[in-house]
């Protein structure tokens, strides 16, 4: 497999929800984009423009109805589910809008969760978790249940969880929606640091603070499931 400059390429991707039913909805029409290795790429567009749909397709969470998606040069559209899982587990780290932590588990347990169905020994797993927790200064909260954490802390736990598997690509959907200016700035700094480690970051957002940030490399604008011209 040749190592191209693009870590992700989509090729005429189309996504139809509920095909053949009365509530059929085409969320993506013929999307072809390239995402470069390293650097921050932003998907920008109004609500309902299909940002989340595209993110979930390139993150191997859902399969597009048509088209091809290459991750590291490999077409993932035709892969059986368990190989998609493998891609998710090995290549991607996800940061969701609502954080999606398991609220009744402790911080540490949440962070190691992605590594649970692997053959990594528990001690090593914990070691890794402590390393990332240290980085985001949440180590002293490790035994605390997530539901007692503040929003900013929860986000840092979510980031730590996304990084535990040492992913190449970090996908973040509306990461700053619940954050104030200061926290959002902090978050962008973290992302910048991750890019420095040669990781790729893809963010979907309609927050001007994010897409006007100086570190953003490429902006893909979307309107109604179509590309509105790449910048």
């Amino acid at each position, binding site marked *: 497999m040749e190592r191209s400059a693009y870590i992700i390429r989509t090729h005429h991707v189309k996504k139809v929800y509920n*095909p053949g039913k009365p509530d059929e909805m085409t969320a993506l029409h013929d999307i072809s984009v390239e995402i470069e290795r390293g650097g921050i790429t932003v998907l920008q567009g109004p609500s309902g423009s299909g940002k989340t749909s595209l993110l979930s397709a390139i993150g191997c969470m859902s*399969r*597009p*109805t*048509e088209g091809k998606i290459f991750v590291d040069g490999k077409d993932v*559209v*035709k*892969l*059986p*589910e*368990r*190989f998609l899982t493998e891609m998710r587990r090995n290549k991607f780290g996800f940061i969701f809008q609502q954080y999606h932590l398991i609220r009744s588990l402790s911080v540490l347990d949440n962070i190691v969760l992605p590594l649970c169905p692997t053959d990594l020994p528990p001690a090593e797993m914990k070691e890794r978790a402590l390393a990332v927790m240290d980085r985001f200064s949440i180590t002293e909260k490790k035994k605390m249940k997530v539901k007692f954490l503040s929003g900013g802390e929860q986000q840092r736990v979510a980031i730590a969880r996304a990084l535990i598997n040492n992913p190449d690509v970090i996908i973040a959907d509306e990461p700053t929606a619940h954050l104030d200016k200061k926290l959002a700035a902090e978050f962008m700094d973290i992302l910048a640091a991750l890019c420095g480690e040669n990781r790729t970051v893809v963010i979907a957002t309609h927050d001007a603070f994010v897409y006007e940030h100086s570190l953003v490399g490429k902006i893909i604008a979307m309107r109604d499931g179509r590309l509105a011209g790449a910048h």
Partner: protein
Amino acid sequence: MTLYAGLLGTVVLLRWDFQSSSAYQLSLERKTYLISTIMNYVLGFQILSVFLFVYTAEDIHQLFVGAMCATGSLNANPVGWLALLSKIIICFAAGLWLVLNYLDHLGEDFPLVRLKYAVLLVLLPCICADLYLQLQYFLGLDPDIITSCCGSLFSTSGGSVASSIAGLPAGPSMVVFYTGFVLYAVTSLFGLFWEKAFLRYLHSSLAALFFIISMASVVSFISMYVYELPTHHCPFDMIQKEYSFIGYPLYATLFCGVFFGLLPGIFQRAGSIPSLQRNFRKIERTWLLFSLGCMTSFVMLTTYMVLFSNLTYFSVLKVLAGNTANERIIPCLLQH
């Protein structure tokens, strides 16, 4: 549940179209998980049920006049032998299906999916038939029947197949047994280093052959040493408590060894499927090693019993020569 899996299996078989990315195909793909899980349960149960069946047959022998072990219970209703045979066959077939399923999961393009469900559809009626046989057996048991037990079936003087096996001379069958094992071990070792197809086929054929040799050996001489009684050849008595359940590890190692020994040959063709090639050789090696390990344990167990039995080969010869005045054997004879 089995029926449900069968139904799903049929649907998958008919409608499977990997190229399609329709929602229907996706739902089929998800159903395969359900089928796999159900079949894992069902087939796991099948494997367990061989053990249960034998144990139950063993346990109920006291209900029958003249029965002293599972042989007697099985004789009480001859369907029992058929049920036992079908159980063993299904046990092997079930194992094969699980391996097939496992291999299918390794490939990125579901390489064996059609074959898998076709085999499943063949397997299901067999499981039902087996269930039917088992029911027939247990319902057809009549405690008033006076059965004959192993003493007569596996006696050295009789016309049946069983007794002719029992009558095989211990010395030569021991030679055949150990030669068979050495041959098998050597092919295994060769197989570990050369990935030639013909070696695989040879290996699997030898495994099958060795299974037959071993079963014959159990009846002809291993049993003799377990019971320390040169005239007793029952393959079932050894799972009794009196013989510290030695039969269970004995049969378990043999069955596992043969099963894993058969795999490389049977799945030889799967190795050439492109999407499997990467992992297949590694798995095959594991099979070979595992099979060899089980077989070696089996043979070691046998050897241990032969060597440390109170019955010496010498006394066997003496008995065969008609000299029954051996003080160690007489009490055994009375005991039984």
